[in-house]
């Protein structure tokens, strides 16, 4: 039995204004597409923009332990597929 893939969307100020507000679609499409194999949730802040601010690539999304920079719905779905293929 494979483990669930966890998707965390950063909802901190920087990520939100840089586009994580557009990732709402994930909340709706992911359960439809993958059922309960993948879990999507927002998190208050991943703390990545303040570490990496000079090269800020917000919005950030974490798929398991991998960080996706400049995340879009397509990028996140692709990463989920890769994770599931490995499992």
């Amino acid at each position, binding site marked *: 039995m494979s483990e669930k893939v966890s998707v965390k969307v950063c909802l901190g100020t920087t990520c939100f204004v840089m586009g994580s507000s557009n990732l709402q679609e994930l909340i709706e499409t992911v359960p439809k597409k993958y059922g309960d194999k993948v879990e999507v*949730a*927002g998190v*208050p802040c991943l703390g990545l923009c303040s570490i990496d601010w*000079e090269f800020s690539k917000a919005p950030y999304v974490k798929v398991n332990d991998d960080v996706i920079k400049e995340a879009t719905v397509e990028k996140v779905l692709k990463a989920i597929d890769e994770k599931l293929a490995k499992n």
Partner: protein
Amino acid sequence: MKKYNQNAYGDYFISKRYPDEAKLIAVLSDGLGSGIKANILSCMTATMLLKFIEGDQIPISKAAEIIMNSLPVCQVRKISYSTFSAIEVNDDGDAKIVEEGNPEFIWIRDNEVMKPEFKSIPSKTFKNRCLKVYKLNLRLGDRLICCSDGVTQSGLGGGRLKLGLRREGLITLLLDKLKERPDISSTELSHYIVNQARNIETDRLPKDDISACVLYFREPRQALVFTGPPYHQEKDSEYAKMFANFKGKKAIAGGTTANLISRELNRPITMDTTISIGKLPACSYMEGVDLVTEGILTLTKTLEYLEANTPDIDNAAGKLVKFLLDSDCITFMVGAKLNQAHYDPALPIEIEIRKNIIKKMANVLQDKYFKKVNIQYM
């Protein structure tokens, strides 16, 4: 509430809190006549009286006496231009009240009406004017209600109450309501009085301006808003402890701040099942915390709502507005650490500086909503 067929209010109410002196002043004035004329008279009387009392150079009774002696007489009706009630009360419950012409105020303790003693000061210049001066000592749970004669005379001449509601009728209404809801807020109770008075008017058309002022002497509701990580990171645990030990309602505004508290107090965060509501990040939840929101964007929106007086909005800022307005004393713990990423010119919108928003918010809460605000920078 306005007299029917008029487009201006003839009663005027003003109140102000003085956090440094731990006191509050409230003035209600009823101007003679109706509409614009009454509006100007009552507004002038109330604001002048407030200014006089807050100056603190002369006692409230003296201030009221000067106003009483100098209010002109209406050429048509030969009576005073306006009537007034003024209340000055401090946090220890020492209240001074002056009245001229308005219905006698009502003091309720343990659902009984108290009969306070008073001193009469007749006017030296006008025979028919007489000032009543009261000194009361309020206890927790006491309520003071004063109103314009529009309340006590509502229903006059028509229907069931030939002589109007009168003081006795108002007292019955108040005691019944307080029995039903002992913790009713002053805002709700004053709305209740005004609506009841309108309901007994013939055809529900007020024949005079109707106003009610309610003071409720109770333990202040404390609230704490923690926003922004502290400048010195090594003090995180200290501030988290302060946050945990605070007695009252608590809110966190900021993702990093929420993570900090979660880590230090070992309390997990759970999120709403959505990402954004109304262009703001969704709220999250933590045990022992009443509200957890994102930081700057939510605070900026909250300030906007507070300034424009738009409550009941279903997003994180709307919730924060409700949180703040449901409290009397609000403490802000403001972390001074800046997130460089917020000042990247590539960001599509400008992100305000936290300190500035909080300062503006404190001013609005104090000046417009009469809250006691305390800001602590960390």
